[in-house]
């Protein structure tokens, strides 16, 4: 029913936008998340998160004395449509900032538009790195804040020495797996002990692949699956694992795209002990987190609503933007972008996230195990914050690159060897 309400809300919003368009006493925030199609399962939540944050900010007096107004569009899990909608948001609606995108392919599609029109995008999802744009702030994890620590945990704690990298066939899993493969080889894993497998979006017949995993894992060396499987395909994947009796004790699966939200569609009893790596878990008990969970449940009127990592990333991004705008007293993209660097905001799980000069955050990394109630309990965490690395140190093409948006460098891909900025 909340969606019916949302639908009415959208209608109301659309009409109010039409009537308010002439008045310049609001600050417009674009929300670019799929509300239909295969990614709706993950992205709808983020749209609601932004709305909740705006609502809260408005109740606290708005921003620069003005009310914040959300402009919600639906790119419908259609990657080219993301670019069109982004253009519409910036050119037509004249929004000051956009919160949006989930899959890397949608971000890649939006990127040229944002750069051309000099917009501002906050991207709240863990991704493959190898990018740093002047106009984008990445509040999700880079590979060194998720994938690399996860692999280290498996090696050191569980003694894993054989790796099955399973992913959905698109840019995020392909790049992440390339980084992981290079990293694993560098730390001395034999080539025959690494296997990479890709499946299409929404793949639902996992019998063959799970049986392959089983065979791969029965060679007497401790084996783990590193899963970059995205979206819907996870449910049948985990179901098949359970049915073919692949237990987390024999072959643990660590996932980078499975959070509390995705688990809410599965009976997690057979998955207990499989792992997930994120920068936030709902189960982490802190005052701020409890407050956030309650606020979320109130806002969605769902007493059992779950929260996840990209939601926290959205929260941090939004609040950092608010802080930056307050600092410079304007929503002008150039000024806000400069003011963003160094802005700090408290994580929900303790500690403070800092926006680094490469437009990535410093964050804590958590490894958790799936519980039978669909929650993920922390079994390992980093002692300090890990700064996000835009360009991986394990790929030959990006090893020498850094991103630094402070003066005088102001470059997203500066080569420290040739001392040159390749530009955008």
């Amino acid at each position, binding site marked *: 029913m*909340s969606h019916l309400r949302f639908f009415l809300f959208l209608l109301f919003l659309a009409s109010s936008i039409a009537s308010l368009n002439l008045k310049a006493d609001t600050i417009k925030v674009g929300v670019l998340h799929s509300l239909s199609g295969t990614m709706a399962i993950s992205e709808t939540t983020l749209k609601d998160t932004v709305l909740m944050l705006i609502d809260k900010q408005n109740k606290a007096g708005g921003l620069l004395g003005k009310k914040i107004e959300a402009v919600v569009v639906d790119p419908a899990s259609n990657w080219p449509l993301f670019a069109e909608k982004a253009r519409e948001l910036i050119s037509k609606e004249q929004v000051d900032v956009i919160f949006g995108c989930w899959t890397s392919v949608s971000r890649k599609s939006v990127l040229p538009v944002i750069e051309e029109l000099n917009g501002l995008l906050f991207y709240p999802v863990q991704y493959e790195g190898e990018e740093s744009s002047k106009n984008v702030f990445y509040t999700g994890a880079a590979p060194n804040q998720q994938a690399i620590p996860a692999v280290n945990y498996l090696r050191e704690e569980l003694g894993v020495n054989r790796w099955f990298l399973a992913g959905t*066939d698109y840019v995020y899993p392909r790049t992440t797996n390339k980084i992981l493969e290079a990293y694993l080889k560098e730390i001395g894993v034999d080539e025959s002990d690494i296997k990479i497998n890709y499946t299409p979006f929404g793949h639902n017949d996992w*019998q063959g692949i799970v049986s392959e995993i089983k065979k791969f894992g*029965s*060679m*007497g060396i401790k084996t783990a699956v590193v899963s970059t499987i995205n979206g819907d395909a996870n449910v*049948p994947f985990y179901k*098949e694992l359970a049915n*073919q009796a692949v237990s987390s004790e024999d072959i643990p699966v660590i996932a980078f795209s499975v959070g509390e939200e995705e688990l809410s569609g599965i009976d997690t009893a057979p998955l207990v002990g499989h792992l997930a790596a994120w920068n936030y878990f709902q189960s982490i008990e802190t005052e701020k987190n409890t407050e956030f969970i309650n606020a979320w449940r109130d806002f969605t009127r769902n007493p059992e609503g779950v929260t996840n990592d990209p939601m926290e990333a959205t929260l941090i991004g939004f609040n950092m933007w608010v802080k930056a705008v307050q600092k410079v007293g304007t929503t002008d993209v150039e000024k806000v972008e400069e003011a963003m660097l160094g802005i700090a905001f408290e994580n929900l799980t303790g500690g403070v996230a800092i926006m680094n000069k490469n437009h990535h955050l410093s964050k804590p990394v958590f490894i958790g195990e799936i519980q039978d109630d669909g929650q993920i309990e922390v079994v390992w965490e980093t002692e300090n914050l890990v700064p996000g690395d835009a360009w991986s140190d394990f790929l030959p093409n990006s090893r020498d690159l850094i991103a630094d948006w402070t003066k005088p460098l102001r470059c997203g891909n500066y080569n420290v060897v040739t001392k040159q900025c390749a530009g955008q």
Partner: protein
Amino acid sequence: MKRSDKHNRFRECITAFARPKTNRFFLPSVFLFFFNLLAFPAFSAPQDIKNDQNILREEIKALSTAKLRSIEPILEQLEKRGAIYLPLFQALLNGQLYFKKSNQDIVKLGKDQKGKRVEEDLFSNAKRPIESISEYKKIRTNNRLRVKLREIISRLELESQDFETRKSAIFNMIGKFQKEDIDFLQKLKKQEENQSILELIEFAIALNDVKHSPILDTRIEALEQISGNLDPRVKNTLNSILKSDLLLTNPSDSQILRPLVETELGRIAKKERFYSVLEKFSFGLSLGSILLLAALGLAITFGVMGVINMAHGELIMLGAYTSFVVQSLMPQQVGLALIISIPIAFFVAGSFGALIQYFVIRHLRGRPLETLLATFGVSLVLQQLARTIFSPLNRQVLSPDWMTGSLVINPIFSLTYNRLYIFFFALFIFTILQITIKKTSLGLKVRAVSQNREMARALGIQTNRIDALTFALGSGIAGLSGVALSQLVNVGPNLGQAYLVDSFLVVVFGGVGNLIGTLVGSFSLGILNKFLEPELGAVLSKVAILIFLILFIQRRPEGLFPQKARTLS
């Protein structure tokens, strides 16, 4: 489930002894008795052990404050006390071990028959209801600890009185025995009376001998004994023999042993290849049965009636949501709910089909392009309807117990039950449908109308009514496949889209208007897919199949089984 039942039985057996002897002096001796009976000899306890419950209770309190890393050494200490801590280990393994926040007491939190949480004492059978879960805190474990716990439990249960417990303990420990455990295994063998467990022990001994025995004859004998066994532990042991120094008393013997081991490995590899082909074949049949289910409804509406129904996938989705709704209405009866939802899904999807036919398709007869567009619109409407009513998130449909797990034929080949059931369900639906079309008067009329509408009408058949019924039948079948799919894939608004294209492919490939064609088409596509997948990867194999189909349709536009046309159309 089975496992914990076994443990409970075993626990009751302990406590049955303990219960009548509330007498304080007797208790320790009861425990001692069990202790001697069950404890692993290598870990015999220190002499000064006091089996006083209070001491034990204090001892395990260390668990409440321990960090994850420091739990392992505590467990190793506790294991030395022997079987008395079995309930503790099992509760910890099953995630039922908690401590009271007030006094750090370690207790097990179980559930009574009504599903209410109760506190269970670890040393007696005492149970009491709890007030609030917030008074307790769970003692956490991780993967590594659980592996450790399983090993400890197996070790403690090796000499258990319960036959099933003992059997699974020995099975779990095979491959984990060390060289020096051979004497212990021999001792176990002498004690054992049960034939099937004896075989397991002999297997464990042979596996140990083949790797560690210094005498060539013993090794060869052991090799013969494990020959033909497909347990991966055999293969791994043999492989590790080849890699390492053989350490025989007579080094020249190794030249005799090596080729023997290699031959055996070759034999295993040959068998593995055979079963892997068989496995692919069974996977193909299973995928084929899903394609068949998805395509059968379409074979009626598209194949027989000639209506291009783009909302076919959404009718499947309706069936899947029906099983979700029925299940949430009767959450205690998962299996029954699934069976009940079969007729309900047929009815729901069928009536939606009838509505679509009545309001949309009826008016567009003979205009396939408009029908295509209109039904595509209907499919979008239905998807959004599902999104509005059930949210865009996937809904969870539980599988009943009898549909989970797999039928193990040998250690490297097994069939999962859910796919087995769905395979037979698909064949069943196919048979029913085939009989309906071929043998009933409705089927006769359907065929008559599809072959020559005017003539059928002239012979007094109410073609409009038959159209509505046929479409409803096809839609109802789509609903049935939705119920089956709810057991395998996501139940969400996009469920149907994934199957729409596949269904059309199957129907066109098999031959429009021919149910047998749909059957053969779906199974051959399924099997082809599963044989290509390991070679090309999931993405490329789909591409390859599409290319194959395009070429095939180019050569034979009428599909595998062309309909013998009696009309001039």
